[in-house]
């Protein structure tokens, strides 16, 4: 474990050094993140000012959900996405072989190879959205906030599992450099709305088959007091299931993997 932490630390510092070397890039991407954060705020406000409720969410609840989304964006696009984006490239140019030859778990190595530090605006935006949302609610329950933090961490495990599972398809040999966009695009467009808005067939897909509709909504619902014990249990089961299944898919994919250079 200590060995793995050391490797994470090395990759982390390597990414940080790149940021410090190319400060202009860092500033540009901070601005891009700020742009998306503002865009999300505008979109949610405009939508809710016109239709008042989405499912049983009003504007304050939507802002809390948006806050959770923006805060989850930090580990998703700051850690998982940059690392996973390298996988199809590594498979195509044969660099994955170098990782396979190393005496450490390959899944671990491909998962921590890159970090991004551009998501300061998401952090600020997420906190602002949540503060505005909570101020408009009649009550704040501290146990819910603590549970909400825990559920957000479980959500992160679920996101990792589902995202990694999609990335394992890149081992099938066909060119698929855009595979990394699949999860992030669907997560962005589907994850922010309450799951009740989806018609039954889409609900089945986004709750059970590819549980993207739960990743943001479950932590958000816990935060504003809509506690559903069955969903919470189901959420934990899904997180463990997808983590295990993605690992199995990766290992099976590696057995079939033939390097680009071989």
């Amino acid at each position, binding site marked *: 474990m200590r060995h793995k932490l050391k490797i994470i630390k090395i990759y982390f510092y390597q990414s940080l050094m790149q940021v410090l070397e190319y400060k202009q890039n860092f500033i540009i991407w901070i601005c891009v993140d700020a742009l998306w954060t503002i865009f999300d705020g505008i979109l949610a406000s405009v939508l809710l000012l016109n239709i008042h*409720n989405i499912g049983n969410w009003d504007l304050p609840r939507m802002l809390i959900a948006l806050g959770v989304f923006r805060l989850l964006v930090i580990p998703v696009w700051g850690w998982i996405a940059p690392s996973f984006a390298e996988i199809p490239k590594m498979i195509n140019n044969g660099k994955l072989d170098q990782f396979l030859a190393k005496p450490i778990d390959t899944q671990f190595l491909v998962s921590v190879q890159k970090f991004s530090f551009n998501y300061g605006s998401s952090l600020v935006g997420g906190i602002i959205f949540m503060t505005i949302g909570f101020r408009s609610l009649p009550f704040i329950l501290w146990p819910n906030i603590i549970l909400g933090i825990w559920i957000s961490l479980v959500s992160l495990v679920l996101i990792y599992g589902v995202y990694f599972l999609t990335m394992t398809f890149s081992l099938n040999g066909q060119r698929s450099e855009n595979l990394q966009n699949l999860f992030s695009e669907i997560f962005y467009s589907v994850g922010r709305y309450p799951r009740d*808005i989806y018609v039954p067939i889409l609900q089945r897909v986004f709750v059970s088959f590819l549980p993207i509709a739960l990743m943001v909504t479950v932590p958000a619902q816990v935060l504003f007091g809509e506690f559903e014990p069955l969903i919470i249990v189901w959420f934990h089961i899904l997180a463990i299931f997808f983590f295990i299944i993605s690992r199995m898919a990766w290992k099976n994919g590696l057995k079939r993997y033939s390097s680009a250079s071989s």
Partner: protein
Amino acid sequence: MRKFWEFYRINLTERFTSQTESIIWFLTETVPILAMTSLWKTLEVSGQITHERAGELTLYYILSMFITRTVSTYFEEWMIDEIKDGHFSFNLLKPISIRFYLFAHQLASRTSGTIYTIPIFVLLAPLYLPTLLSTVSGYKLTVFGLMMIITFGQKFMTSWLISLASFWIDQASALNHLKWVCEGVFGGSWLPLTFFPVWWQNFSKFTPFYTWYYFPINYLTSKTVSHIELFWAFGSSIVWLILLIIFGEYFWKKSIKHYSAVGA
């Protein structure tokens, strides 16, 4: 012209060979639309919007998906990479203009994009066809088709300008995000502009994005678009296209002079 069609044919074959990538693009573009369509359907069931309004909004998103699939251009990401890593030099040595090649490439890409979308349009037909048939006419379809050709040109030139920016700035792909956000807030790709305040809608009319999604869809599906509005939209989109071509040409000349390849 023969060269153009030969490039087109090769690129189209390539698109159908790399099916996984095409299917991924298809999913990334259709799932957000399905999510929004589902939202309007649910709001209709809960009585928050009328059946007619839900039909209009569903049609709006399906047409928006049609526009994305048929006229959106996506070459800037790999062009930026090619310029940054120096592979772009090969294009300069070829006896064919890079823009000529890119145009054929993008046309092939959009052809395959449209073909991949046909099944979903057939599947969703009961959701949009009744509303579409009640407003559409041959004349409107012709105008819509012309606007799509202009939109393709504008999108192509915007992608070209974003690609050229990488001759000057390292992170030109950041401009792509700016384009997506502008498409969303001024073009109506995420939400119809009628949801926004009137001053916002008026401002949008002065941007090129206005005629990418909102206006063509509104024109096709609404009975209230006047000839003056149509004239304004058509005129402004042509002016924007000309401006984008002029900027594209100007920056291309500047960029080539500025360019020094890796290893050179």
